[in-house]
């Protein structure tokens, strides 16, 4: 006799403690929500872990693994949501190593009372992002915490990828004279988020730039296989990446303010909020270092990819024992671009 199970109420239902208890309710949530949206052969095995096919033709290449937790607030923002962000973020971390991302895992921490309709929107968005990127979510986990002990939903994704033989991207490759490139307009994500935070009644049309960058990276590596280093300027923005690399490679850097691509709407919003676009987060941009001789070819490769249309050479690496990051201002002076001090808070006057 076939037993009847009431389907998950994805319209009006809410997450409750039973969804994380390991019982029937949890199995149902996994079946009717996660497995349905993330559907793929590996996930369908429903094992405790994912069995991944052996990688052929690796030829001395190596595996790359990266993990990233996502706690963004608000969960839904102009241009994206925590779901697609959690897919893009980890794909990008794998891609910044020069690797081709293959598989993702997803861990969910849900807060009791969270609307299942919102959860489905998030899961559908993750599934769409994974599909579009060609990187399936092959294993996962769900936990539920009591109301008040989470912020709706937290998502941790882990990605694995393969790095072809000969690719070696790291800070210690960076040499004096290297050119510094960015892949496009900076600050979109941070401003889109800031403009939507509660108690900041501020309207903009700026959309988050959240995007998976692995195909851009592949195009760049095809053009310049000897690329020195890559990093995506997420929290802390461009300034953080430049300082991290300067600190790690021991050289100074000089960037030119006039060459840094920033949308006028973003510049205006930053002006109003007392923020500096150099420190504002991005979720679909990268910073690249290459030998000066390769810079034009790399720039051309970036600009011919849709996610690198606004790419620009913004500066170069210089000899400086202090490993300071400096900027030639559009005004004509020079100043340091230091690490962000604490959280970037608006100024009052």
């Amino acid at each position, binding site marked *: 006799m076939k037993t009847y199970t009431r389907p998950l109420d994805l319209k009006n239902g809410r997450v409750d403690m039973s969804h994380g208890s390991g019982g029937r309710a949890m199995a149902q949530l996994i079946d009717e929500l996660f497995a349905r949206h993330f559907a793929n052969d590996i996930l369908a095995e429903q094992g405790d872990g994912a069995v991944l096919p052996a990688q052929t033709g690796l030829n001395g290449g190596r595996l790359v693994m990266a993990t990233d937790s996502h706690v963004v607030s608000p969960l839904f923002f102009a241009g994206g949501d925590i779901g697609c962000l959690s897919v893009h973020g980890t794909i990008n971390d794998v891609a910044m190593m020069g690797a081709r991302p293959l598989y993702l895992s997803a861990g969910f921490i849900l807060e009791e009372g969270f609307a299942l309709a919102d959860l489905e929107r998030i899961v559908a968005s993750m599934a769409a992002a994974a599909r579009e990127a060609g990187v399936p979510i092959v294993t996962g986990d769900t936990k539920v915490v009591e109301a008040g002990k989470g912020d709706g939903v937290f998502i941790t994704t882990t990605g694995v990828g393969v790095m072809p033989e000969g690719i070696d991207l790291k800070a210690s490759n960076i040499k004096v004279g290297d050119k510094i490139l960015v892949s496009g307009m900076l600050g979109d994500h941070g401003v889109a988020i800031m403009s939507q935070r509660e*108690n*900041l009644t501020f309207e903009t049309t700026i959309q988050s730039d959240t995007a998976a960058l692995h195909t851009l990276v592949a195009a760049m590596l095809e053009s310049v296989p000897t690329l020195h280093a890559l990093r995506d300027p997420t929290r802390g923005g461009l300034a953080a990446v430049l300082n991290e690399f300067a600190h790690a490679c021991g050289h100074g850097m000089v960037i030119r303010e*006039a060459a840094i691509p920033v949308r*006028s709407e973003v*510049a*205006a919003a930053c*002006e109003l909020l*007392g923020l500096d676009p150099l420190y504002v987060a991005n979720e679909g941009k990268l910073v690249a270092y290459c030998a000066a001789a390769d810079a034009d070819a790399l720039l051309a490769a970036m600009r011919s990819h849709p996610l690198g249309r606004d790419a620009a050479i913004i500066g170069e690496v210089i000899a*400086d024992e*202090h490993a*300071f990051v*400096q*900027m*030639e*201002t*559009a*005004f*004509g*002076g*020079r*100043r*340091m671009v*230091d690490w962000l*001090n*604490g959280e970037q*808070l*608006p*100024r*009052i*006057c």
Partner: protein
Amino acid sequence: MKYIAEFRDGELARGLAKTIAATVNPAREYRLMEFCGGHTHAISRYGLQDLLPANVRLIHGPGCPVCVLPIGRIDSAIALAIQHDVILCTYADTLRVPASGGLSLLKAKAQGADIRMVYSGADALRIAQDNPSRAVVFFAIGFETTTPPTAAIILQAQRLQLANFSVLCNHVLTPAAMVHIMESQQDPAAVAIDGFVGPAHVSTVIGSGQYEGFVARYQRPVVIAGFEPLDVMQAILMLIQQINAGRTEVENEFTRAVTREGNRKAQGLCEQVFELRDTFDWRGLGEVPHSALKIRAEFAQFDAELRYQIDYLKVPDHKACACAAILRGHKRPADCKVFGTVCTPDHPLGACMVSSEGACAAHYTYGRFRV
């Protein structure tokens, strides 16, 4: 970004730089104090010093309201939030200012105090309306620029008969601090400042006329300047021209916003709600007479100081800190023993390192490659 980019034009800046270079007398030094944190920020952020001749030295003044807020005042705010369980609303840049006992408003928040960042006092008023069962205190700081909005919300709270709202008033006055700097030596003529770049936003409220007495008494030129880098360059040129000609006058570079009378309506609001304090403790400068405002007795119900019977406890500045000398132009940030070592923007000891507009923080964040 129309009407902003024009004031940051690199080509105009180079032209002005040439004129300044041609105008200075190479035989002398020009020691110019920009009073406001807004100017300090513009100078540092745009690398303006690089466009000036070596004998034009900019001294960063005490006009950063966050920097000069004394530790004891922040201690009071923290006590309100923790002991009296109020919702404490504050401007963002006061959150990190170090208080006693290793605390700050940000750390108190992490300990469970209900501290909320607002962009204006009106937001605090709204929070009070939305939370009628909670006491809400607006931690009001700033010079004459932020004072009229505070007056306006106190009047509005009175109209709304908002019983759960009050203001912890820390508003300070610019002219009094300028006088204090000139009086810091027995002979004001010996003060190592040749001219002042006068406040921008403050002057829109108080008017350029407010500096006339100061200029006459201390014989130092004041040129009021906007906060954009070209404004500051132009004001520097005007100061150099006055100094070369032996003139001491109030001049106004910021005519697009500042008049001689200032904003009469804003002045009226402040007059109605606030009165002068006999004295006020400034971080870095110490006690400065008649330099701050308190809420008038008729608005006592909105005065958090009275309502919560706050006794101000003075906390001395750190012994090794050279802020007092730096804020008066006697020392430069790099002359301080603790600059960049134990005193950094992450762990500020003194007033000048507290906010990004402080003299030391600006030098550390934007200019230390020059050291």
